[in-house]
């Protein structure tokens, strides 16, 4: 099958790559660009482990064809820390012990990032709504919610 050329910007760096139509964005990120912080769980948009930011929206990268990311701006977990400093959300996850096995963590942090940017006014239940598309099989939700809340409230 013919490969398609695509240009995309990942973590503020430009890439030109050639991909088959069947390549999903998560596979492009992991296998071609070596950004293995994005995890691949169910492959069907249920678990949220592969969440990345695409043009400012949190999306399941297993449900996006790489060719459809042509011209897109992508942020993965590797793109959050800058100049050796963790993003406040990353730091809060560490401080609150919101990480157990770590598999869901990149997706949780990126969906929370999107959520906090879009919702200036928050209610208690909003934090759970924010992560409703992300599964933590260690069931460590309480600390995850606590970490996101901590950042939202600017502690």
């Amino acid at each position: 099958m013919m490969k398609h050329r695509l240009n995309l910007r990942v973590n503020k760096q430009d890439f030109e790559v050639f991909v088959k139509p069947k390549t999903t964005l998560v596979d492009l990120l992991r296998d071609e660009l070596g950004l293995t912080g994005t995890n691949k769980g169910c492959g069907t948009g249920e678990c949220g482990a592969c969440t990345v930011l695409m043009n400012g929206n949190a999306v399941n990268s297993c449900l996006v064809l790489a060719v459809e990311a042509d011209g897109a701006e992508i942020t993965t977990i590797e793109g959050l820390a800058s100049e050796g400093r963790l993003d406040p959300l990353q730091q809060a996850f560490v401080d609150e012990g919101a990480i157990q096995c770590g598999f869901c963590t990149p997706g949780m942090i990126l969906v929370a990032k999107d959520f906090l940017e879009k919702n200036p006014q928050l209610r208690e239940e909003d934090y759970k709504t924010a992560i409703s598309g992300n599964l933590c099989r260690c069931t460590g939700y309480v600390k995850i919610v606590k970490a996101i809340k901590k950042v939202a409230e600017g502690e």
Partner: protein
Amino acid sequence: MILPEIEYHAPRTLAEALKLLVKLKEARIMAGGTDLLVELKQGLVEAEALISLQNIKELKKIEKKDQSLRLGAMVTPQEIISHPLIKQHFPALVEAAKSMASPQVRSLATIGGNIASAVPSADLPPTLIAAEASLELQCTESFREVNLLEFFTGPRLTICRDEELLISILIPVPPPKTGISFLKFSLREANALAVASVASRITLENEVISQASVVLGAVAPSPLLALKASELLEGKKPSPSLFEKAASIAKDEASPISDIRSSIWYRKELIQVLTRRSLAESLKRAQKNPG
């Protein structure tokens, strides 16, 4: 889980897309891809090619046209949730969009896909039917506007022809003193399909219900307008006992199946409760809405 080898086309204009539809007989139209890609991965559907609508800008517009809102087929639930015109005129549609899947899927999925897939449990159609929405279907040769209610012919079946494309959804701005609401029951509060859902609409004139509709989701092969329940309401003064009666008629009109999510009995009970609650909410909104 991996995708099969497949050809990919991403036309930049509607005209180009329509031509491709005629030319590529074994192609599937891809809107958001949140259902289609999963079905392709699981081998539930086969296709030689995908025609992606992602690059067609005119399908992403939300605009006011005369006394209607016109939503392009590629508008996402996330855009529905945050659009000021939709919030103002159709709060029930915002609620239906919020009840869909997960935040991530809501940024990828589309209103056109939610309708054209014709899945019986789809979340947007009941509210859209209650709001008397119609669809614009376009092919290279012709254009037609059809009533959304008449679009569905069965589970995953519609009147849309192979070479036709659903391009936009027209929702008439409701008259004054109209309230619409949507309620859904699912096994979890988020990321779950509807076990049963109800959208209702009430228009008041001098304290009397001049127009009403009760639309049921996930309890029939397609979204179902509960005609008898709707007719009962019209011309009457709203009251809890009237709503109770309409709810029990709606329960009889529902013709659900038993499946992994629920039994027939439970779905019918749900319809009764959701209809009563939805009517009460629609009434509240109708009384508040000056138009």
